[in-house]
C-alpha cells in the first residue's frame, strides 16, 4: 500500500497526535541543533563551546530560551504594532507547516493502526512546500517593514530579494526530480528512489538545490540579511524577547525543513543506505525514522560546516551568482534531462542517446572556449590601456629629476 492510501485511513485522533508529535519533534530538534551548531562551530575554531548548563551544555539552548522569554518585550514607537506582532508568527507557523508533507517513515504500527509517519500526502506536496516557503518570506518582509527603522527595512528587503531569487533556482532544480519520478507527491518521489537516489542520477540538480537551500534559509555564507557588520541584526534588529525567539526558532526549523526536503527528494527519504535495506524492517518499520534523521542531520552538519568555513558573500556577487549562474544552468540542465527522459520513454536507439550526450558535451566545450577567448581579449585590451606612459604629450613635472637632467 502506498503512503497516501495508508494515511487516508487515519482516524482523526491519529492525525492530531501525529501533528503534535511532528511539532514537538521540530521544537526538540531545533533546540538540539542550536546546541549542536554551537558545539561543532566551536570545535572548528578549537574551542569547547557551551559546557556550563547540564551535561556537555546540553541544556544551553533551553536556558537561552527561558532567558529570552523573561526579557523585556519592546515594541518601538515607530513600529506598526499589529504587523510587528504578526510577522514572527507568520515566520514560525509557515516553517512548521512545511513538515506536514515530509514522510518520516514507511509503513509502521502506530497504536494498533497501520499508518505512515506523515501528516498528509498531497499529490502536489513539493509545490506545497515551495508555496509555504514563499509565504514565510512575508514574515521577514513584514518584520523589516513594520519595525519603522532603517536597518530592519534594509535587512528585510535584502532577505526577501535573496529568498525570492534563490527560490527560482530551487524550484528549477526540483523540476528534474518531477520529470524522473513522474510525481510531485513526496512519498511517491521517495518510492521512486528505491533503486537509485536522485542525488546520484540528477547530481547537478542536487548541487543546485543544495546551494539554493542555503540561500533560501539565509544562512552563512549567504546570511546577508543578518550581516552584523552592515545591518546590525537585519530584519530582527528591533525584536526582543519571545518575538525574537520565534524568529530564531523559525530560522532553525527552516534549516531542518529544507534538509528534510533534500533528504526526501534526493537522498531516498526514510529508506536505508544502499546495502542496508534489511534494517528497514527493524522495530516494526520504525527504524526508518532513524535513517531519515541521520540523513537530515548530515545536511545540518553541512550547514554548520559552511558557516564555520566560508566568509559572507558580497551582495552583488551573491545576486549575480543566483541569476547569472544557477538559474541559466538549471534551465539548460532541465532541457537536457527532459530530452533524455523523452528519448528513453520513446525507446530511442542507444546510438541516438549517446550522440545526444556527445553533442551536449561538444556544445558546452565550444561555449566555454569562446567565453574564455573573449575573456582573454578583454584582459589584453585592459593591459594596453594600463600602460604607464600616456600616448599624448604632457608637460614635464616641475622640479622633477628628468627636467633637471635635461636643463
Amino acid at each position: 500500500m502506498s503512503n497516501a492510501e495508508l494515511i487516508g485511513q487515519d482516524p482523526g485522533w491519529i492525525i492530531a497526535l501525529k501533528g503534535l508529535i511532528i511539532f514537538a519533534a521540530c521544537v526538540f530538534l531545533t533546540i538540539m541543533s542550536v546546541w549542536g551548531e554551537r558545539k561543532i562551530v566551536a570545535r572548528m575554531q578549537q574551542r569547547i563551546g557551551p559546557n556550563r548548563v547540564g551535561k556537555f551544555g546540553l541544556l544551553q539552548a533551553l536556558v537561552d530560551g527561558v532567558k529570552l522569554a523573561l526579557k523585556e518585550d519592546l515594541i518601538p514607537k515607530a513600529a506598526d504594532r499589529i504587523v510587528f506582532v504578526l510577522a514572527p508568527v507568520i515566520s514560525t507557523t509557515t516553517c512548521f507547516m512545511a513538515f506536514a508533507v515530509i514522510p518520516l517513515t514507511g509503513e509502521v504500527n502506530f497504536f494498533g493502526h497501520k499508518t505512515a509517519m506523515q501528516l498528509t500526502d498531497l499529490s502536489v506536496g513539493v509545490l506545497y512546500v515551495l508555496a509555504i516557503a514563499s509565504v514565510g518570506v512575508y514574515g521577514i518582509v513584514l518584520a523589516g517593514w513594520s519595525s519603522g527603522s532603517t536597518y530592519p527595512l534594509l535587512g528585510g528587503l535584502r532577505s526577501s530579494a535573496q529568498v525570492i531569487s534563490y527560490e527560482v533556482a530551487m524550484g528549477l532544480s526540483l523540476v528534474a526530480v518531477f520529470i524522473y519520478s513522474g510525481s510531485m507527491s513526496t512519498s511517491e518521489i521517495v518510492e521512486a528512489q528505491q533503486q537509485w537516489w536522485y542525488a546520484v542520477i540528477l547530481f547537478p540538480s542536487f548541487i543546485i538545490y543544495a546551494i539554493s537551500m542555503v540561500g533560501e534559509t539565509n544562512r552563512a555564507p549567504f546570511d546577508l540579511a543578518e550581516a552584523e557588520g552592515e545591518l546590525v541584526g537585519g530584519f530582527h534588529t528591533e525584536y526582543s524577547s519571545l518575538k525574537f525567539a520565534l524568529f530564531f526558532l523559525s530560522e532553525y526549523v527552516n534549516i531542518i525543513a529544507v534538509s528534510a526536503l533534500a533528504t526526501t527528494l534526493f537522498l531516498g527519504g526514510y529508506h536505508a543506505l544502499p546495502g542496508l535495506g534489511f534494517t528497514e524492517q527493524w522495530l516494526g518499520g520504525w527504524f526508518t525514522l532513524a535513517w531519515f534523521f541521520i540523513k537530515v542531520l548530515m545536511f545540518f552538519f553541512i550547514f554548520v560546516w559552511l558557516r564555520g568555513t566560508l566568509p559572507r558573500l558580497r551582495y552583488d556577487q551573491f545576486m549575480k551568482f543566483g541569476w547569472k549562474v544557477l538559474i541559466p544552468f538549471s534551465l539548460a540542465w532541465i532541457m537536457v534531462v527532459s530530452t533524455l527522459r523523452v528519448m528513453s520513454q520513446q525507446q530511442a536507439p542507444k546510438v541516438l542517446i549517446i550522440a545526444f550526450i556527445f553533442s551536449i558535451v561538444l556544445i558546452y566545450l565550444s561555449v566555454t572556449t569562446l567565453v574564455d577567448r573573449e575573456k582573454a581579449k578583454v584582459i589584453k585590451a585592459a593591459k594596453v590601456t594600463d600602460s604607464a606612459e600616456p600616448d599624448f604629450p604632457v608637460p614635464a613635472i616641475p622640479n622633477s629629476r628628468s627636467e633637471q637632467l635635461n636643463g
Partner: protein
Amino acid sequence: MADELIPRSDEFGLAKANEANAPITNQEPASFSKQLLGFWVTFRTMFKKVNTVQYPEVKEETAPRFHGRHQLNRHPDGLEKCIGCELCAWACPADAIYVEGADNKEGEQFSPGERYGKVYQINYLRCIFCGLCIEACPTRALTMTNEYELADNTREKLIFEKDDLLGPLRAGMVPPPHPMYPNTDDGNYYRGEVTTSHPSQGIAKHD
C-alpha cells in the same frame, strides 16, 4: 628640493618595500580545488586539541613579570618603603594614583627618614597597568604582583587604599609605627644594611 624625497639608494630595502606594495596583478579568484581546501582546514580542526582553559576552575600561571595589582613593600623590619614623594602619581599617564605624604614624628614613625605616604590610593578603573609608576619609584616601594582578578561591582571598591595595597608582614617584621633600627639612619635602610627588626622596635611577627 622635491627630489630629496626620492630614495637614491636601496640601503633601507626600499626596493623590497616597493615590491611588496606593488599592485596585485592576479585578480582572479583561486582555483576551485584551492577554495575547497578551506573545508578540510575546518574539518581537521575539529579533531585538534582545544585551546580553551576552563578559567574559574583552572587558572594558568601568568608570565613572571606580568603587570598585575600593585603592592607597597616594606623594609625587613616592617617599616614601609614608601616615602610619600608622589613620583608614582606624577608618572601615571592615566592619573590613577593619589598620594598624600606626611612627616614621620617621634613615636609615630612609619618609614625610615622624614616622610611617609599617609594616604595612598590607586584607582583600578583608571589604571592601565603600564608600570611607569614602578619605574618612577625611587625606593622600590611600589611593585606589581601577578594578581589579575580585579573585578568588582561598585566603583568605590575598585579604589584601593593603602591598607589594600600594603604587602603582608613577614617573619621578623614589626607592624609600624615603630622607631627605626637603633643606631641607623635612612641610608642604612636603602643600602640594605637593616636585615631584621630589633627587640627595641616592638614584638616581631613569628612564623
